[in-house]
């Protein structure tokens, strides 16, 4: 198999064995076990984080180029070939910039906020299985871990906003916290529909159960999850945290220099991490054709998701804050619950009563039902809301003006 090479490269245990033999040779017979464990875990984590940061740097370049191309511009193209040196130039610039702290700011909170925002985003990647085995750790509560860790983000945004004592920042972080917590519920509902079929919270189990990708089985769950994930990382059409035209720059108004770089890193890492989660939950993870390793397919799917996000970002405007809240609480919640119970009924009916297994045939049936349901629901909802909100009569000229002279 071609995959072996890659698996060995990033597998924890190969690292472990390597370090184990090193420590054995160095003469730590007794303690080489846990020392090599820590060494392997540390080096692998360090590698993973740096890879992720590099990927984010590349992603910022990719985003700028792609959106520029959507906007019939060129994007960064001066630093290095195709402008690839741009993110590094940015980082160096931001490190070299002066790091101003407002005199009224709550300095410890202000300083810790970027870390508190970056660390949870990074932590999500630990439980995502890039290939059949996890990249780092296989947790039984994988997806619950992700949901729990993302909720730290709202606190971090609060810290950033409150710490800088800036009105725009506080306004942005309040909106941000309210929005993040609102969309956590639909996101969890979208995940629940996946869990109904997967039957496990572990990410690798979820991937293994996707004989048919869950995006095909439950388009509505995908829609709900995707919408709320977009809000969770605060991208258009839900980017209320920054809302540059309204709030200046939102919660990171006062940040500069390296702190801004870290906030920026966390913010741009979110799409990567989210696309990884989406790939795992709905796009079959590393599944693909055998002639290329699973990691390739995983990254390819991530690219597709990221590109879709960029496409949306470059096309749609932003919703207002109350509309965003209304969308989460009034529409996505309903859709999520309906979707969950529909899938639960389907599972209860279609599941083999003896073995408790859903075959791919069952899933195809479910997919058929769910697609019909999704399309009908969305069309109905769009028409219902549209009729109520967007229909309007033809213009009637006001009687108060008459451009033809009346005569004396």
């Amino acid at each position, binding site marked *: 198999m071609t995959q072996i090479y890659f698996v060995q490269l990033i597998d924890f245990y190969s690292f472990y064995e390597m370090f184990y033999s090193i420590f054995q040779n160095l003469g730590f017979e007794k303690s080489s076990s846990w020392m090599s464990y820590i060494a392997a875990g540390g080096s692998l984590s360090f590698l993973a984080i740096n890879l992720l940061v590099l990927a984010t740097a590349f992603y910022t370049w990719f985003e700028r180029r792609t959106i520029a191309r959507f*906007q019939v511009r060129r994007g960064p193209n001066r630093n290095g070939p195709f402008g690839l040196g741009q993110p590094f130039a940015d980082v160096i610039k931001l490190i070299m910039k002066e790091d101003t702290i407002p005199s009224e700011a709550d300095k410890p909170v202000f300083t810790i906020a970027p870390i508190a925002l970056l660390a949870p985003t990074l932590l999500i990647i630990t439980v995502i299985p890039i290939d059949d085995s996890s990249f780092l750790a296989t947790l039984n509560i994988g997806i619950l871990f992700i949901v729990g860790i993302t909720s730290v983000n709202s606190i971090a945004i609060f810290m950033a906003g409150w710490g800088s004592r800036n009105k725009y920042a506080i*306004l942005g972080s309040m909106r941000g916290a309210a929005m993040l917590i609102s969309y956590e519920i639909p996101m969890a509902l979208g995940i629940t529909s996946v869990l109904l079929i997967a039957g496990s919270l572990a990410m690798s189990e979820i991937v293994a159960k996707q004989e048919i990708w869950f995006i095909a089985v439950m388009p509505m769950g995908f829609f709900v999850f995707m919408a709320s994930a977009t809000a969770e990382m605060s991208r258009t059409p839900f980017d209320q945290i920054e809302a*540059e*035209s309204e709030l200046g720059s939102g919660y990171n108004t006062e940040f500069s220099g390296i702190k801004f770089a870290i906030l920026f890193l966390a913010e741009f890492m979110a799409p990567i991490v989210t696309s990884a989660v989406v790939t795992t939950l709905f796009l079959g993870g590393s599944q693909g054709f055998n002639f290329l390793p699973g990691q390739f397919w995983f990254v390819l799917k991530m690219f597709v998701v990221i590109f879709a996000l960029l496409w949306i970002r470059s096309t749609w*405007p932003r919703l207002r804050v109350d509309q965003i809240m209304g969308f989460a609480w009034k529409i996505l919640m309903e859709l999520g619950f309906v979707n969950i119970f529909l899938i639960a009924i389907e599972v209860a009916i279609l599941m083999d009563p003896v073995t408790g297994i859903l075959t791919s045939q069952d899933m195809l049936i479910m997919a058929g039902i769910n697609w019909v349901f999704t399309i009908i629901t969305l069309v109905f909802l769009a028409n219902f809301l549209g009729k109520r909100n967007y229909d309007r009569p033809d213009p009637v000229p006001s009687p108060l003006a008459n451009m033809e002279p009346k005569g004396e």
Partner: protein
Amino acid sequence: MTGIRTEPVTVNLGPQHPSTHGVFRLRVTFDGEEIIDLEPVFGYLHRGTEKLAETRNYTQIVTLTDRMDYVASMSNNLAYVRTVEKLSGIQVPERAQYIRVICAELQRIASHLMATGFLLNDIGALATPLIYCFREREKILDLFEMLCGARITLSYMRPGGIFQDADSDFWNALDILIQELPHYLDELEALISKNEIVLARTRSVGILSDADAIDYGVTGPILRASRVKWDLRKANPYEIYNRLDFEIPIGVEGDTYDRFHVRLLEMQESVKIITQCIKQIEKGPIRANTPYFIRPKPGETYQSVEGPKGELGFYLISDGGVSPYRCKVRAPSFINLTPLKKMMLGWKMGDLITILGSIDIVLGEVDR
């Protein structure tokens, strides 16, 4: 539902703010997200145009008018030179009138494109429609460059006509533009005015009723969005507008959506006007035989044109000298800001930006 009584917070929006369209400042008092009070603060771009005009001669003032509404200098030039012509009784050759109308309508398209693009930018469309709008606007600016060597501050018109005829480069480029533009405008309309998010953000937001609109003295697309069918090109036809056939689009209820939709429709009408002008224009002189130092008889006159922002009027008083005794500008952007409070109170912070964007102010004209 009022909720718990919270302390209102007063926030400065501007002058250094990304979306106040220049150095405009609003002191806004929010209750949570809701606007409960606001006060516009003007004057960061005040250059005393009216005072300067009293020390320039009639031809030189043309260059001052460029700097007022700097995204629509042609219309400013037109309004000013028309007033001078009226004051001193100059007859303008017909060809010059046609070229002036073509320029004014091109300028209207350019200005409306910019207004629409920036409104969408304020709504948060990440500048994509803005750049599509700018792409088309650049073509118009290229035309202006061919015509008079400048792109923004044109100073193209002179009392008595225009200073230089358009050569064949210009006509060819104009033909191409007029053929392409309707298609791009349709695309723009499909991209933005049918978009449900834009509808959700702009429909029924910041409504200005027709009676209020007249009472507050707003003009231009804002007045027409409030269902008032009033356009000086039809109501008081100047130049050769009475020979042209075009519609005056109006809005449904005077909300933010209507204000930018009226602009989109007006661009289509402007294309129609230009097409007709190209057909009708004939050769002839382009400038009446006017002296450089015009000395009108003592008297006064008020003339106005329908600029992209609204009724742009000049009130000139002559004492028989080479420069006007008093030059008052009726600046549409300035007067359109009067109902700001009326439109904005009770709306959210995001709406504030879109409503301000839909008024389409240019600070050069507001502060003069």
